[in-house]
């Protein structure tokens, strides 16, 4: 396995690459529209008879970054899967730009401008180029090809390894290809499930820096994590414990909560 390559070129950051070509659902500036981009209302969900989430509310405004913090098994991934329609809600509803999409199929929610990056992030058997093209599948072949050149410039790693199977890259490289793949679809909201999973601290830092560039291009972010490194990106955070919402507020307020500080920051 090769050494990790530079992630994004200094000449063309992902933010710069994103900014000139907003997609159909490009985000408005924060505050321009009071309707949240994504809103989850009173979500209860689970698998079969096993309930893992109870009455969760969550919203993400245009241009905002929200981090869902919680330990393994807290229900973070399930909440994201409910938002995308991969897991049906037992109760509650999912709204996109004021439209109730609770009954919409996953691919149709994606078509409304949500990009989702799973823990794996890529199709391991397919080449990096094919992964990127799939990221823009909803936009059609012509737009996908145009976005491909933009992505190669913004993420030199993807150009360098374009013909390699994505699964042959290192963990950090795969995550970056995953980010590039999601951005290929010109999303207005990027949802990420544990982007730090399996990464070294150095690779986590690189991913955070790339996401900082994404955030500056007015793409909204919803990140489920147990790694507090991602809180630096967020305006707001919610904490889930045992399927219940334990906290919701600004990151500063989270840092001021003594119990949470002990639990997540290891500070007495």
């Amino acid at each position, binding site marked *: 396995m090769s050494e990790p390559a530079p992630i994004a070129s200094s000449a063309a950051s992902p933010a710069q690459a994103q900014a000139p070509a907003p997609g159909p659902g490009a985000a408005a500036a924060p505050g321009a529209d009071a309707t949240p981009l994504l809103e989850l209302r009173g979500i209860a969900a689970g698998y079969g008879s096993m309930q893992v989430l109870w009455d969760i509310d969550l919203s993400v405004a245009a241009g905002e970054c929200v981090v869902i913090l919680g330990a393994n098994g807290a229900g973070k991934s399930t909440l994201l899967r409910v938002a995308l329609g*991969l897991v049906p809600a037992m109760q509650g509803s999912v709204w996109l730009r004021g439209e109730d999409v609770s009954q919409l199929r*996953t*691919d149709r929610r*994606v*078509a409304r401008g949500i990009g989702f990056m799973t823990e794996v992030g890529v199709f391991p*058997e397919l080449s990096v180029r*094919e992964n990127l093209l*799939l990221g823009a*599948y*909803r936009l059609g072949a012509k737009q996908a090809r145009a976005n491909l050149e933009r992505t190669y410039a913004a993420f030199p790693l993807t150009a360098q390894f374009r013909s390699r199977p994505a699964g042959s890259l290192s963990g950090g490289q795969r995550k970056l290809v995953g980010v590039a793949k999601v951005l290929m679809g010109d999303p207005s909201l990027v949802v990420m499930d544990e982007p730090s999973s399996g990464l070294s601290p150095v690779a986590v830092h690189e991913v955070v820096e790339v996401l900082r560039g994404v955030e500056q291009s007015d793409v909204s972010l919803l990140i489920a994590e147990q790694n507090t490194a991602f809180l630096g990106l967020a305006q707001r955070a919610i904490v889930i414990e045992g399927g219940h919402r334990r906290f919701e507020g600004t990151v500063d307020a989270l840092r001021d909560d003594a119990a949470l500080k002990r639990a997540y920051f290891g500070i007495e």
Partner: protein
Amino acid sequence: MVLYALISGILIGLFYGFAALGLSLAFGVLRVVNIAHGDVIVLGSYLAYELSTQAHLNPLIAIPVAIPVAVVIGLAFYRLIAPSLGRSKDPEMLSLILFFGVSQVIEALATIGFTVNQDTLLTGPVGNGSVQILGQTFPNYEPVAAAVAVPGALLVMLYLYRSRLGLATRALMSSRADALLAGIDVGRTSALSFGIALALAASAGVLSIYVNGGVNPSQGADLTTTAFAVVVIGGLGNPGGALAGGLVFGLAEQFAQSYEPNWAGLVPYALLLAVMLAKPEGLFGRRARYA
């Protein structure tokens, strides 16, 4: 004898690979083993038989006739079963039972329509002559079967590796959930893949009536077994592997046929067991998922 077995093994092996391609595609996309695959091959054989004996047309014309019919039936059948499979807690087991039922229905209907007797075509696809290849003599259906199988398989590969829909199909083979998250209409892509899989099986049936010396209603189970062995040797869910598995199966069978005819039925399956023990994912199968 070595040269004869080698050439014959390649020619017949290409046919086996082509005959198994649909089974591999259906498994790769839908994660179901279509145990009625061999029965669809039988239907293709009967279509060729009817066109030849009733309409006095070249049996190979059955291929362009069978393809659109099979695709439409595949699309409709997928739409029929998909909701039940989606609701099931054990879709693999349900699909196994379901396709077993389909297999039995096809066999029963074929028996009603054609009796249990073996039907053969007395004239080959291009006459009854033989063909000389590198000084060896072969019945002309062997190179004809290979000549149909190779471009047929190439078309499938072009579809999978050079088209946008093919890319979506391979994404679906990799991960259904991630394909949904890429915005792919998984239902439509799956239905089309199943239709193509049936079309491949029916097309292979047109050649099978020659390669297997005729057709009878109970032949489906044997054909499914052969196709399954080919797919497992090559690697489950990998269409390219099915072609390679077909060559391995065909060569093993033809070499055994040439040197130890009594063992010809055993050798390919002994090879299957050996491959499973040495390389459980098949010779060209996907390795374990990346974490």
